């Protein structure tokens, strides 16, 4: 066989060359040809040429540093640590003899560390990919907004307002910028993980459309759930276009021009006309539904509002419930907003607490997101729960809905009122709440219900 190898280590002083030497000796002893490119601190030496790559039967990458694999598309690539190259060169070469090495870049070109994940459900894997890229945006945006509201905010009848022109206004806007990118990033990287680079643009643009209701005449966007839908839509459309055979002439422009353009167009059309307009209709329907409930049992109303606030964390259901509560304050009924203010903060606080109570059920990044969620919950930013909900929606969303419903009902039954359209403990700090004690009891109970329920439902994560 004709083998190629690349070795590289963090400092590029010793291990790079030891692995190169070992691989060369082992290959020779086993009767194979090999050429080893070393990427050390001297730079790249013995560089592999395109011609050699074309002729090679396989490529071994023994590196503890990131090595660009794009030039090996369609070749059998075995990626491992530099230590394996030093310790077990024969085993690595045997894998090629036994034809156990998969071809790189055919199915999908995810990175080395994701090889282990190969057995996972691909839908789950794509969702995870999107969520992990989204988390920093939620954390940065949420914490900046929280900081601005907590220090610079003033309660007014139209919500917590930050004085125009103050530095906190600027900080709020920076945080809002990060929040604006959240859903496009989620959708973009879901699509990226399905269709690789050509999926990124359709995914991000689709996510932006999903998050921006004005595209389809709606007061609110479709939230993160809409973003997930847009991401998968974009990914699978881009992947489908990739499969269409095209003449060689056109091939080079497929990934940068044809696939992104066509996929973006299709995603936009589908989202605006097939998914978006029903969302606008849904919001109208929900609003008139809630208005019709005005005379109904207050407890039923609290249950419905709690569920709506938690269900999509900033999406259309949440928005309708919130706007309804705000409208009721204007009519002199602040009890509705009292119940909503509790439901607004129990999802992030409850999930944050859950990550602290049972570390085994959350990945590292989820635990970090959990801490940020606690801070966001305190100032009434329900979106703080999204990173945890998006990873495991079927278990998390029911838990936060039930926690929020319980909290809302307690608040409603004990006549908690909130005169400012905003939620979370911060509104009590601003003295906008009547019956503060029960307000906090409602929050605490809702948070505990959420945390215990979600931890009971979630399975420990697999390594």
């Amino acid at each position: 066989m004709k083998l190629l190898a690349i070795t590289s280590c963090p400092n590029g002083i010793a291990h790079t060359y030891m692995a190169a030497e070992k691989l060369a000796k082992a290959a020779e002893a086993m009767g194979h040809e090999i050429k080893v490119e070393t990427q050390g601190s001297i730079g790249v030496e013995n560089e592999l040429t395109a011609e050699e790559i074309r002729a090679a039967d396989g490529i071994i990458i023994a590196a503890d540093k990131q090595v660009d694999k794009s030039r090996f598309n369609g070749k059998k690539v075995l990626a491992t640590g530099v230590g394996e190259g030093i310790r077990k060169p024969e085993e690595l070469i045997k894998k090629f003899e036994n034809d156990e090495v998969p071809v790189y870049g055919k199915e999908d070109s995810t990175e080395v560390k994701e090889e282990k994940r190969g057995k996972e459900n691909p839908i789950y894997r794509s969702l995870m990919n999107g969520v992990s890229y989204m988390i920093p945006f939620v954390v940065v945006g949420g914490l900046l907004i929280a900081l601005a509201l907590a220090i610079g905010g003033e309660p007014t009848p139209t919500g917590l307002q930050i004085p125009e022109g103050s530095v906190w206004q600027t900080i709020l806007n920076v945080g809002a910028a990060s929040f604006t990118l959240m859903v496009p990033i989620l959708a973009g990287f879901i699509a990226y993980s399905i269709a690789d680079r050509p999926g990124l643009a359709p995914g991000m643009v689709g996510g932006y459309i999903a998050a921006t209701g004005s595209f389809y005449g709606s007061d609110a966007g479709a939230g993160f759930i809409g973003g997930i839908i847009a991401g998968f839509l974009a990914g699978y459309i881009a992947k489908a276009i990739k499969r269409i055979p095209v003449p060689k002439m056109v091939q080079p422009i497929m990934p940068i021009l044809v696939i992104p353009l066509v996929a973006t167009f299709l995603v936009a059309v589908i989202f605006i006309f097939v998914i978006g307009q029903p969302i606008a209709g849904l919001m109208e329907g929900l609003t008139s539904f809630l208005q019709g409930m005005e005379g109904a049992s207050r407890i039923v109303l609290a249950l419905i509002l709690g569920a709506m606030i938690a269900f999509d964390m900033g999406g259309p259901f949440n928005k309708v419930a919130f706007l309804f509560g705000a409208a009721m304050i204007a009519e002199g009924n602040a009890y509705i907003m009292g119940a909503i203010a509790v439901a607004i903060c129990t999802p992030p606080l409850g999930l944050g607490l859950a990550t602290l109570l049972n570390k085994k059920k959350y990945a590292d990044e989820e635990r970090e997101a959990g801490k940020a969620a606690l801070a966001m919950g305190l100032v009434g930013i329900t979106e703080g729960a999204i990173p945890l909900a998006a990873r495991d929606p079927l278990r998390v969303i029911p838990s936060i809905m039930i926690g929020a419903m319980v909290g809302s009902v307690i608040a409603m039954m004990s006549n908690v009122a909130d005169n400012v359209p905003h939620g979370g403990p911060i509104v009590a700090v601003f003295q906008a709440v009547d019956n503060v004690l029960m307000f906090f009891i409602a929050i605490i109970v809702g948070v505990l219900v959420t945390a215990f329920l979600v931890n009971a439902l979630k399975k420990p994560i697999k390594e």
Partner: protein
Amino acid sequence: MKLTDLLTEDLIKMDVEGSTKDEVMNELASLIEANGALTEKQPYIDALHAREQQSSTGIGFGIAIPHGKSDAVKEPRVAFGIKRDGVDWASMDDEPANLIFMIAVPEKSAGDEHLKILQMLSRKLIDDEFRQSLLNATTKEDIIKLASEI
């Protein structure tokens, strides 16, 4: 440049006293400091630790190559120590390290000649015979002689 420009007799310890990885690194770093190649010892030690944290430099076969790149290193040097009963280096094969080559490299160095030397050394250490001769050596002169072969 030759390996023996970097590795001189005063940088060799035929019987390392330290019994832990940290002690051994400290001991060999003192040799490099005494040789005058360091402006300060601690930053170099820190660089060694930072490298070990990424992954152990114990590559197995009883060899460890701790190495640090630091501003505190004036000139490239190699220190060498033998630990007959071995020292735990969290090596990939879980075997203790007997032969310790410790490398000091300046952060910004003129030219990369010394890197080529270290590359040669690294490649040579893969050779079973070479390792055995190092272990068989009894005097510093033996070591220098072996080093001059590279």
